[in-house]
């Protein structure tokens, strides 16, 4: 169950990274389709990332049951840290999208903006916590690698070719 929860968290984070990678790069007013495409791109790339790490995890499982157990312990730790963070972010996002004007601004000021700023620290912190909790070199490398990929995820997505390029000088 825990690995799937972790995969779901990566998918959600990747989708939101897709939004942020595209935000502030297109000066049009009607941006629904633009953001939908960017979020799809983020989700797709995150599925590929999950697939890649799942492949490595399966290889470790086949290699040794100790490796797999350590990975599960690390996954528990990661889900604990990232799950709390994601719950707060998604709650604020829900408030932003369906709440009144004042609640929307408040959720942005209190959660969405500051949490974007600390996201890399939370990812690194969660990965280090999981690595330390696992007490296993292979699992620790796995966790830190996954953290490094997620920290650089938004920047990687921004390297794509969004449609704003024709409108703004590089």
């Amino acid at each position, binding site marked *: 169950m825990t690995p799937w929860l972790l995969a779901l968290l990566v998918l959600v984070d990747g989708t939101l990274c897709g939004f942020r990678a595209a*935000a*502030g*790069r*297109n*000066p*049009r*007013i*009607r*941006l629904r389709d633009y953001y939908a495409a960017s979020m799809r791109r983020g989700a797709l790339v995150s599925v590929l990332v999950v697939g890649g790490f799942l492949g490595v995890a399966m290889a470790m499982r086949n290699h040794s049951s100790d490796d797999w157990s350590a990975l599960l312990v690390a996954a528990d730790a990661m889900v604990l840290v990232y799950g709390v963070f994601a719950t707060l972010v998604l709650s604020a996002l829900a408030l932003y999208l369906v709440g009144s*004007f*004042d609640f*929307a*601004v*408040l959720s*942005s*000021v*209190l959660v*969405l*903006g*500051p949490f*974007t*700023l600390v996201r890399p620290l939370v990812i690194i912190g969660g990965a280090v916590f999981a690595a330390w909790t696992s007490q296993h070199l292979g699992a620790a490398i796995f966790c830190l690698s996954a953290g490094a990929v997620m920290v650089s995820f938004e920047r990687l997505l921004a390297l794509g070719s969004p449609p*704003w390029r024709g*409108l*703004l*000088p*590089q």
Partner: protein
Amino acid sequence: MRADWPELSDLLLDVDPETLARRPVRRAAVNAVLEKHGMRVGRSVVDAIPGADVLDPDAIDGVLLRSHTELQRLSFEFQNGVRLLQLLKPLLNVLRANVTERPLRIVDIGCGLGFVVRWLAAYGELGDDVELLGCDFNPALIGLAQKLTEEERLRCEFRVTNAFTLERRAHVFLSTGVLHHFRGDDLGRFFQRQAQAGAKALLHCDIKASWAAPLGSWIFHQARMREPLARHDGVLSAVRAHSPEVMLAAAKSHGRPLVYSVFDGAWSPLPILRSLNTLVGLEPSLAEPFVSALGKSKARLGALS
């Protein structure tokens, strides 16, 4: 950062206010200003702009266009269009009842990329009797705003022009994030010229000065912006923001016969709840109907005087 520091965007664009001709920006002159104020971060932003003696105007335009596009993202997030509509819709209803001339002309001063005007055109549902015009001195920003307007088929217009010398007067002057660019006598002149231009009403939205504004601005500009100039000027804008008292004093002493107040200008121990405020100016005869038209929101507007 200090309130008397100039914003980089103001240093990098030099336009003759009469002829609207763009004047070359000399690196040495900009650096001298930065040196005088000890603006080291600002210096690194300027150093990155190509050009030996004169800063490359195309590179400056690129920086400003990207910065304004990022700023537009913040405008979306903070729902600046919706925020303005809270005041603009009641105001237009009052103008319809008290002004016979049509169309009602709304002019955005220093509109930049024209987010507010284009958003109002796309989503404002202001009615067919309303005309939207955005004015700015920067041809690159106005050029892109007009191009986007045509591409998205919006009913609004943009011009590189002085908003106070239009061939047909504006009924309403708007601005967003413009007031803090003016200080001292310049702020007074800003209100004087609007009053002379004969507007019926003014709505000037800007960052609300508070202890939290610079910190909040820093968080959002670090989290949301990529352009170093946008990050620099965004935080400095919050430092430079005028208190309601300063805005009102300048408006009342130079901008008569209009009467003034500030919407969301009341002091709050938790200023994050209201991060922007709006200076409202009205012809005296419109004051009472406007306050009535605000409905429940009238508690957020101080007394017009």
